[in-house]
Structure formats: C-alpha cells, structure tokens
C-alpha cells in the first residue's frame, strides 16, 4: 500500500481534506485489523471512534522514519479500544502482542499508490443503474445519509417499513456483487 504519511503535513496543520485522504486510504486496513474482534466487539463503532481520536492527536504525532506511521498509530488505537471494550465486559483478549507487532510491521512498508480504476467505476455505475427500483432507492438512501442517520429514519423517508428497507439494502448489495462478478470483477481484489 502507499505511504499514507504523505498526508501528515496537511493533517498536522488541521486540514480536514488531508485527513479525509488518509481515511480513504486507511479504512479497509483498519477494518481488517479488527476482524479477530468481530464476534465480540462492534468493530464499526470502534473503527469510527479510533479515526476520530487519530484526528484529535495527529497534530502531536511524530514520525519514526518508517512508512505509514499514522496508520500504525491508528491500528494500535483501534485495537486498544477493542480490547478496552472486551475487558469492560470481563472477556479475555485472544490476540497476542506479538501478532499485533507483526501486523504493525507489515504496515510499515510502502509501495506505489494505486489509482482508482475508471473502468471499474463505470462497471459499478452500470450495475447500480440496473438495480430494481426499491433496492436501488434503499442503497442510495444509505449512501446519501453517509452513516449520519439511523435506518429507521431512512425507511420512513422512503415510505418503507424498517424490515423492508433493510431487506432491500441486502438485495442491493447482493445484486451489485453478482453484477460485478458477471462483469469479471472480484470485489476482494479491490480493497
């Protein structure tokens, strides 16, 4: 992955656009790093909370000379939050410190930045247009809300019952994945 520390000067200066670029690059790595907690901690809440805390402390962050220092800090903060959640509920932490250290070392390697694939974007847009109206409406309501509104409010806005809304979101996701697969696109290859 590319070295996300290239955004550090802007982030340290308090530029939200620079932090947004970091978030775009870091999110999937951070989520993968929380996979082992998925059964026992709400990783979505932990991930968002960790990113917000990174923004709060980024101005004081000092690089250690290796790539992706801020991403490694975010990974540690996310893991610590997950561990705190677990301990608060009296649960045992399964992941060892050496496993965490190995994962952090793997992040301290940078390669060339991947440019967004315009062909892939065109394909997924075609798949979105091909969705049936109700799944498409449910998906677009979630996209527009950007995680800022509960599903109950989104369902109300579409005159759907909450369960119907959620079933339509599921249908939309499955249909998009199937459509991409038919076009020869493996979603796993595009983190």
């Amino acid at each position: 992955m590319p070295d996300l520390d290239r955004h550090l000067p802007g982030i340290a200066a308090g530029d939200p656009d620079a932090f947004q670029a970091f978030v775009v690059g870091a999110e999937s790595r951070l989520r993968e790093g929380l996979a082992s907690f998925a059964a026992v901690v709400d990783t979505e809440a932990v991930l968002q909370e960790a990113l917000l805390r990174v923004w709060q402390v980024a101005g004081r962050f000092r690089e250690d000379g290796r790539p992706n220092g801020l991403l490694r800090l975010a990974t540690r903060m996310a893991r610590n939050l997950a561990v705190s959640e677990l301990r608060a509920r009296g649960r045992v932490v399964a992941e060892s410190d050496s496993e965490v250290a190995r994962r952090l070392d793997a992040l301290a390697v940078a390669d060339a930045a991947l440019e967004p694939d315009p062909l892939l974007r065109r394909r997924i847009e075609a798949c979105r247009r091909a969705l049936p109206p109700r799944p498409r409406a449910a998906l677009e309501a979630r996209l527009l809300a950007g995680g800022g509104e509960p599903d109950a409010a989104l369902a109300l806005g579409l005159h759907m019952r909450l369960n119907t809304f959620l079933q339509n979101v599921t249908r939309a996701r499955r249909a998009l994945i199937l459509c991409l697969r038919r076009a020869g696109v493996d979603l796993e290859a595009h983190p």
Partner: protein
Amino acid sequence: MTDRRIREVLVEAAAGAWRPRHPGGRLGPHPAWADLDEAGRREAFEAARQSRRLEALLDPEGLSTTARAVMARVRTGR
C-alpha cells in the same frame, strides 16, 4: 417473519455505518449488533466489509459511509 429473515435484517442493520452516540459523545454499538449471536456478528462484519467497498467505489471521492460519518464529525467538530 421467519427466524432466518429476522436474523438477516439484524445483520443488515448492524452492517450499516450509523452508530448511536453516548452522552459523552463516544460512539456505541448498534442495538441490532447487541441482539446478534457471535456467528451473526461475524456475518455483519463481512456484510459491512463488502458494503464499504461498494460504497467507496460508488462515491466520486472514494468515501464509504464509514468515512463520510467520520468526516462529518471532523468537519463539524462534534
């Protein structure tokens, strides 16, 4: 609804990016996540992973709904 349908609905709800905020401002777990068993929570994690990838590909700036939720709080200072 059948038990299977109820479970699917809970998984989809927990896979969304919206999260409630505690009075101190900290984000809490989704109520649907708390209603799932461990296998259901793993399914929700996988559904979230797929959804965020699709959302980022559909967004002109490459932001998932998770990224949008975080950036909304960063930009408003809340």
